[in-house]
């Protein structure tokens, strides 16, 4: 097991190398100059003090040949240094760390909604296969799966924020969901409600497609498990239908669900970008988009490399979870 994990971690190194190379080259092709942005985009380029420009460029190492710049970047990265944001005058790593809780809060809430609704509903309709409620659920699931998330977001904003005035149109509460739980003793439930009010629309929007996937996947894996011989055996020896469903069917149906869960969570982390933009949610995705807009090389690179790292680790975790759930699987 340990050897397997080490091998997987080693295999990540060339992949990360490739990722940095692609992002680095892409950012250098981008037709824009962070130093000029720093001086203010509206300033006439001819009137900028060329000497100051040269010095600034030099201080960020941007006057070096690109292969040298890349080498510097990768060697620093290897020691955990993600570089500094040119425009925000702060270490990239800190900037991302600041925004990460917002993205995690959103992604984890969406995932929870999808799992808590999707899996029980999937089991419920699977044992009622072919019934009216089964067909209706499948139909709604395929609708949710096909609907573009950012469009749903806009429709929900129109309904709940613009028309009904129940929820804010965008943004995040002053306190995170976690912090608002901590302050309940002093400030009561108001901060928690505020946090939830801000979170609910983006989280639901993000979860819809995944809920649909979980319903369909749970339904099909449960149906498959119901056909197995051991289910017939369990019933034959007189176990209650409830015990059969939970102990024999659902447990065996979990494996594909765990894979899907892990993969979709990884996808969620990188896929919150659009939702963050529509709801003005201050997460890593928006940080990346803004950095891209202002050609903040190091920041864009940092966001992409860190997200890709999270992505790879999530995939590894999924594979390890397999072995945990299914004792027949052994990695060596």
């Amino acid at each position, binding site marked *: 097991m340990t050897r397997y994990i080490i091998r997987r971690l080693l295999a990540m190194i060339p992949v990360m190398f*490739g990722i940095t190379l692609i992002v680095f080259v892409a950012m250098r092709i981008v037709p824009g100059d962070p130093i000029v942005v720093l001086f203010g985009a509206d300033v006439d380029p001819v009137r900028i003090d060329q000497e100051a420009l040269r010095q600034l460029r030099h201080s960020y190492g941007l006057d070096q040949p690109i292969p040298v710049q890349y080498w510097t970047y990768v060697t620093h990265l290897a020691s955990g240094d993600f570089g500094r944001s040119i425009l925000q005058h702060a270490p990239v790593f800190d900037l991302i760390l600041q925004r990460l809780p917002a993205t995690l809060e959103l992604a984890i809430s969406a995932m929870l909604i999808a799992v808590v609704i999707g899996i029980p509903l999937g089991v419920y309709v699977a044992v009622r296969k072919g019934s009216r409620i089964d067909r209706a659920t499948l139909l709604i699931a*395929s609708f949710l799966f096909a*609907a573009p998330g950012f469009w749903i977001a806009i429709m929900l904003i129109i309904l709940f924020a613009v028309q009904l005035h129940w929820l804010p149109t965008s943004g995040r509460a002053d306190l995170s969901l976690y912090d608002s739980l901590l302050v309940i003793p002093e400030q009561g439930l108001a901060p928690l409600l505020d946090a939830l009010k801000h979170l609910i629309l983006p989280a639901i929007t993000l979860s819809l497609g995944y809920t649909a996937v979980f319903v369909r996947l749970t339904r099909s894996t449960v149906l498959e498990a119901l056909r197995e011989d051991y289910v017939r055996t369990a019933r034959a020896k007189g176990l209650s239908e409830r015990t059969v469903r939970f102990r024999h069917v659902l447990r065996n149906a979990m494996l594909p669900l765990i894979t899907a869960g892990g993969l979709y969570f990884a996808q969620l982390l990188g896929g919150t970008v659009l939702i963050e933009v529509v709801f003005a949610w201050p997460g890593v995705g928006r940080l990346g988009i803004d950095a891209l807009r202002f050609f903040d090389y190091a920041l864009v690179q940092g966001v992409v490399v860190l997200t890709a790292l999270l992505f790879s680790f999530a995939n590894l975790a999924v594979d390890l979870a397999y072995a945990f759930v299914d004792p027949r699987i052994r990695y060596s």
Partner: protein
Amino acid sequence: MTAVTTRLGLPQSPVAQRVLSSRIAVIAIIVIVAFALVALFAGLLAPHDPLEMNVADRLDGPSAAHPLGTDQFGRDVLTRLMYGTRLSFFVAFTSVAIAALGALVVGTVAGYYGGVSDFVSGRIIDVLLAFPPILLALVLIAAVGPNVFNLIVVIIVLRLPGEARLVRSMVLSLRQRTYVEAARCIGADDRRIMLRHIIPHTLGTLSVLLMLGMASAIYLEAAFGFLGLGAQPPDPSWGTMMRDGLDVLRRAPHLSLFTGSAIFIASLCFNSLGDVLRDAFDPTTIRR
């Protein structure tokens, strides 16, 4: 359909019949054909000029002159939706078709010959698949500039690696089949084995991917147009129209509503057709 399946040497009746016996599939095919016709003949069908502005009629709701209302420049929404269909379908079809073809070539060569070609393509695919897709697309678009051609290239880059890996894994197992061995025994060369005995068997799965790919490419075009990274205004595309709609959400929600519905319906049809095809190609599926 029948002619195609015969030529590819697939068991002809079951798949086509299964697909056509599904009511959902038939509806989806009809709607997709309708969209395709609108895309092809937008110039003849559209009631107005997609770029014609009319400040007096800004943000009007549906009326006889403008069945789906007008946008903030007084342009006819129905007309722009029709031209938008042309652009969205063009982007989606071109990118998905090229990606599938590329995946077929890369996957077959890597899976059949193995060795260096497999190693090199495998490592490149590893890197591309390790990127969160939306972020990869954003970075690439930023580098090469936002326009329709670049968007097509980026969608190809997003789709090709996953599909190539899938084709490769199918080819790896198909290569071991006894009929491939038999073909080799009677002197068939690699080219013939690949074209006649391996590739046809991957097409079923690939056709499912094509449909799901169309749905996701339409979504990507809309998402990138929406972010200002795809088609550029004033060109009508579903994405740019969603963006226009967001700006005037409070005064004229009909703009977002109609444009989003078009994206939704198109994506729903391609997804449903993909689902039906998957069941149809899967012999273990029990008919419900």
